[in-house]
């Protein structure tokens, strides 16, 4: 007898983002914690309903801005005042007004790079394979279908009960995602 495949979770398909959002809220209220929704476009309120914390992205951007701007200003001062001071046009060695624009550009550069990298790192991307891609009809998640996956790793997960719960939420179909 073949061993049963390990289960990643149950994937429910919904017609509209509103039904999905209601199902996510209901699942969270019922005590499910390891779940994720998959949508073709950002749905406002979905991240909050799932309890996603996006603040680290903002902190990363701030850190990148401080690093870029502070580092840039320090570099300009060090180069023109400490490392090799030169009299150029009779202007002061520490020409702060002139240092502003490069430092500002480096602030923007640092904040952008840090924000983008933090977004990818927190999302664990790039990751080209993922169990949810094996769910039937999942490719429609990038077109016009809305999915909710409750993972088998959730302590609250029971195959029959969870399936019944998802169907009660109005799912068009519920399918198993092999792990």
């Amino acid at each position, binding site marked *: 007898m073949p061993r049963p495949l390990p289960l990643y979770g149950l994937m429910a398909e919904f017609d509209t983002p509103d039904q999905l959002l209601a199902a996510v809220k209901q699942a969270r209220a019922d005590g499910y914690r390891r779940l994720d929704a998959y949508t073709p476009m*950002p749905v406002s309120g979905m991240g909050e309903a799932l309890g996603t914390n996006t603040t680290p992205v903002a902190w990363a951007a701030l850190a990148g801005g401080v690093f870029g701007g502070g580092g840039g200003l320090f570099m300009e001062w060090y180069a023109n005042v400490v490392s090799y001071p030169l009299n*150029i046009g009779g202007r002061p060695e520490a020409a702060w007004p002139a240092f502003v624009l*490069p430092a500002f550009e480096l602030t923007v550069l640092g904040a952008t790079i840090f924000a983008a990298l933090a977004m990818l790192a927190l999302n664990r991307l790039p990751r080209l394979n993922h169990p949810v891609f094996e769910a039937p009809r999942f490719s429609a998640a*990038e077109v016009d279908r809305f999915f909710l996956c409750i993972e088998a790793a959730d302590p609250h997960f029971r195959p029959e009960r969870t399936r019944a719960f998802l169907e009660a939420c109005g799912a068009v179909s519920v399918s198993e995602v092999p792990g």
Partner: protein
Amino acid sequence: MAEGKSLPADLSDRGVTAQIAGAVLHPPGSGWAWLAVLGASGLLVAMLLVSIFWLFFKGVGVWGINIPVNWGIAISNTVWWIGIGHAGTFISAVLLVTGQHWRNSLNRFAEAMTLLAATCAAMYPVLHLGRPFYFYWVIPYPNVMHVWPQFRSPLEWDMFAFFTYLTVSLIFWYVGMIPDMAALRDTATGRRRQVVYGLMALGWRGSAAHWARWRRAYVIVAAIAVPLVVSVHSGVALLFAVGPIPGWHSTIFPPYFVLGAVFSGFAVVVMLAIVLRAVFGFRDLITDRHMDLLGQWLLATGLMTSYGYVMDAFTAWYSAEPFERGTLLDRVAGPYALSYWSAVVLNFVPLQLLWLPRLRRTMPVMFAVALAVTLGMWFERYMLVESALSRDFLPSSWGPYVPSLWEWMLFFGLVGFFLFAFTLFVRFLPAVPIAEVKEVLHEEREE
């Protein structure tokens, strides 16, 4: 949005994907027209390479620049190109931060335009160097000579501005495109396309947690791209405003240049939008309402630019400074009158048609006005840069400037490069953002 919806009510999510991804995966019509455009612009790219080769081989003396006018159309074109780029970031970032959802149909190709125009602009500062192979000396790095670039020059600032602008635009464009790459990966049928778009999508799966962080990062980058746009073109304006030359040394230049930049950029966006609508049939996505709003923006930024013209002339007269007044006279009635009045007429006369809502929705009129503005802004940059240099403080150092054939070849070669790369872009990447258009669609449906 009280003034109406930007997308038709009968448009479906599936229809949006089919239209945008279809333009990439199953391009309409035969491939001949596309190949013809690619080939024609490819010839211009070849001309660009020839003119760069000759420039590097013989030196900058092959250009028409001389000792009073040592910044020729190389520099005025830099300003023109980078200015065109600014509307892309303006649409992407400023309109995102201010919650203008109609931007969602326009931002992708506007960002592509930014990236390409900024690339064209960024070539000139290296090409016009007498010794371009030492261009890396403007980049600060610890070296065995113990020398640093000096940070008091706007040319040095512009290295930072251009480098940052290109990098940030690229990141913003790519981050915005990750979800659309996933949509292309999942709708493509050929294996090769699935692999290529799959790699570019980085494994995006539309997870709500991912969307939340994506949105946060996207908005943060947009919010800092707003001051970036202003600073980049202000930095470009400071190339002139920081110098002592009459006709350049003006405090109005930074905002005046930024507004002119957004003005010319919107004009190019209008032309590209009209072409995309016609070629790909994107009338459901880039609707008449989008064109109407673009026309309003063009009119608004144009009127602000015209205010800059008036104030620039007024302060020159009001300064009672003979050299400032002399430069103004050169522009209005002297050897540069042709470029001055070309700029005034092309920029502001056809523009007045856009007061009429009906004409803002008439594509031939919009295209003609946008083309006039694009040319007019070219004349403006030319007039501002060259007229000030050719006749300034010492009459013994007055001299004319006539761009040489090599300068024109380089310029038209860059226009070809822009068209070549943009033609490739619309063929292989989604010209309109798929996910963001659907977001607007759902929002408008709920209202």
